[in-house]
């Protein structure tokens, strides 16, 4: 990953120096080796803190809604999954494509420090990834973890490729893999109604309504969210009743249906680790099954499944009988 970072840094420097772009959006070093934060770099000096490592999981595309409005061109580093969100935002006219210079960067899955800590690793000092091994140095000693077990949930089933790029930085070829991203959804579908209800009740009861899932979501780009609008009649800041959690998550999932690119940020940011991506994936799976395969963010044009129709669409009652197929 270090050689990728150096290449990125070179490009960022060159772009800023030549004045081709006014700023670069990337990640900057944190206090540890595992907490880089999204950042905007406007000068070459600021690039001292630049970093691209195994923990740069954050999707930078949503920041562009605000940042790209500024004067001049903005360069941004986007991982494969981020480019879908970017395209979707361009499609919805939230970002002016002309004002952004996209540098597509490689990603061989990002690590989830919470999963590492859950394996008993704490006081992490440095992390090195060699093939499928994660070698961790801690104050308590050295440990080796299996990489597939500690990558972000969103990376587990990712097969995405760059959909938007003005240039590309790829050093390592990503190995091909065959995964079914709907496996978890299918598992839930196979349960009885009661079991499904119990599953979601248990998970959603942890929700603290911090709105992190909404605020990080690139598809949630409304200027004023209906849940923040006191005039909407449903604005609520906390869970007063279990209904509130359900209402929030159902409506949120529905609002992004057909536009959700499955970037998985919602699950990454949830402080209570609620598998929120399983809500969105149900919609994706249903849409694929009922109206033909559709991947939001693949292009910047065309209609989404919920803004189009065919005369022969399936009737809602048949969706029930066939369990969504």
């Amino acid at each position, binding site marked *: 990953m270090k050689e990728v970072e150096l290449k990125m840094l070179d490009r960022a420097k060159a772009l800023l120096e030549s004045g081709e772009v006014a700023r670069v959006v990337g990640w900057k070093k*944190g*206090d*540890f080796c595992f*907490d*880089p*934060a*999204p*950042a*905007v770099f406007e000068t070459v000096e600021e690039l001292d803190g630049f970093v691209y490592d195994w923990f740069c999981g*954050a999707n930078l595309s949503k*920041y562009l809604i605000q940042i790209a409005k500024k004067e001049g061109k903005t360069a941004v580093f986007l991982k494969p999954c981020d480019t879908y969100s970017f395209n979707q935002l361009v499609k919805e006219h939230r970002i002016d494509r002309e004002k952004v210079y996209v540098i597509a960067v490689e990603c061989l899955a990002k690590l989830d420090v*919470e999963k590492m*800590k859950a394996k008993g690793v*704490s*006081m*992490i000092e440095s992390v090195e990834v060699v093939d499928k091994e994660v070698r961790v140095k801690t*104050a308590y000693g050295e440990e080796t973890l299996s990489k597939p077990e500690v990558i972000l949930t969103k990376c587990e089933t990712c097969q995405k490729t760059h959909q938007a790029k003005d240039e590309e930085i790829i050093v390592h070829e990503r190995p091909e893999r065959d995964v079914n991203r709907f496996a978890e959804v299918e598992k839930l579908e196979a349960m009885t109604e009661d079991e499904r209800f119990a599953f979601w009740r*248990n*998970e959603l*009861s*942890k929700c*603290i*309504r*911090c*709105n*992190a899932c*909404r*605020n*990080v979501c690139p598809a949630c780009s409304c200027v*004023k969210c209906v849940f*923040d609008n*006191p005039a909407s009649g449903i*604005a*609520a*800041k*906390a*869970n*007063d009743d279990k209904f509130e959690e359900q209402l929030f998550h159902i409506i949120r999932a529905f609002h992004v249906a057909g536009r959700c690119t499955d970037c998985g940020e919602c699950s*990454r*940011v949830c*402080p*209570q*680790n*609620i598998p929120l991506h399983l809500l969105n994936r149900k919609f994706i799976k249903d849409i694929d099954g009922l109206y033909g395969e559709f991947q939001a963010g693949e292009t910047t044009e065309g209609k989404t499944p919920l803004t189009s129709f065919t005369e022969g669409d399936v009737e809602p009652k048949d969706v029930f009988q066939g369990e969504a197929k």
Partner: protein
Amino acid sequence: MYRIAKENLNQLYAKINETMGLFIPVKRAGEVNYAVWGEGKEVSLETLKTVKSPKNMFFPQTENMMKFKTDGKNIEVIDVREQWDERRPFVMFGVKACDYKAIEVLDKVFLGDPVDSYYKMRREATTIVTLACSRPEESCFCGVFGIDATAPQGDVTTWLDAEYLYWQANTEKGEALTEKVQDLLEAGGETEVEAQQTATKTVMEKLPFANLDLSKFKPENLNELFDSKEWESMSEACLGCGTCTFVCPTCQCFDIRDFKTNEGVIRYRCWDSCMYSDFTLMAHGNSRTTQMQRFRQRFMHKLVYYPSQYDGTYSCVGCGRCVNKCPQNLNIVKVIKTLGGKDND
């Protein structure tokens, strides 16, 4: 000092639960949070940091304040405090040193004038059993605020090792609780506790945030800090979610709202977050219109406004929850490092 074997802890919980409620870290759907104990619940004392702090025992995320029942032109006001069963005594078990200190921070707000009777009623009915830390992690920095994680205060202090839970009563309330569970306790443990404390302290000294410099955060520097140019870049990546405020043990802001039922209205309060765009929304609009201003408000309150109101006590206790949970890895440590003083470099 007393001790109780780890395998007997469930008996201890059951014994306490006979006469009092028990509020304890419980694992649910993979995450550990404080909850009311019951037979069969998976208690996890070993968890260093519950996702939410125990503050919701006294200051729940939502609580009904009063109800209005309407019947034609008559409105009946119902004081919900009269129906409370939470008045029964409660034991809050396993509170870490930082969270205990946080309760003191909240006490100053809620028990000072004007007294918050909702908070007070619960606070007074609760016996707090604290638990010393033995395996702090990199995000901990309670020492910076003068907290000794190996010897928390509280009505009873406990220590946990591989075999035993050690028990020491500190107050009258603590003595009363000890008496109730006396049958399950046996004397001993001083040497083990001391050994654990020494071992933990060596680790604490090596924590990466052990020496944060707070010297700049003084009331007299208020304007200088407020006007700092750094806020802009520090808050750039802030999503404006409420994670930091809702996992924070000292955040105390709330909103009061009405909910219409079929029969009338419920007036409730719920946690609010200064990170939200509708925080302190008034008829004229909002006093803070950008995320930078909201971000600044949160940290200025923790490190400058609160201390200037309450004799220099910071309203951060260094629990590190925001360090772990911020989706984009922004947190109070980064603010302290940037603005706190020259020893931070």
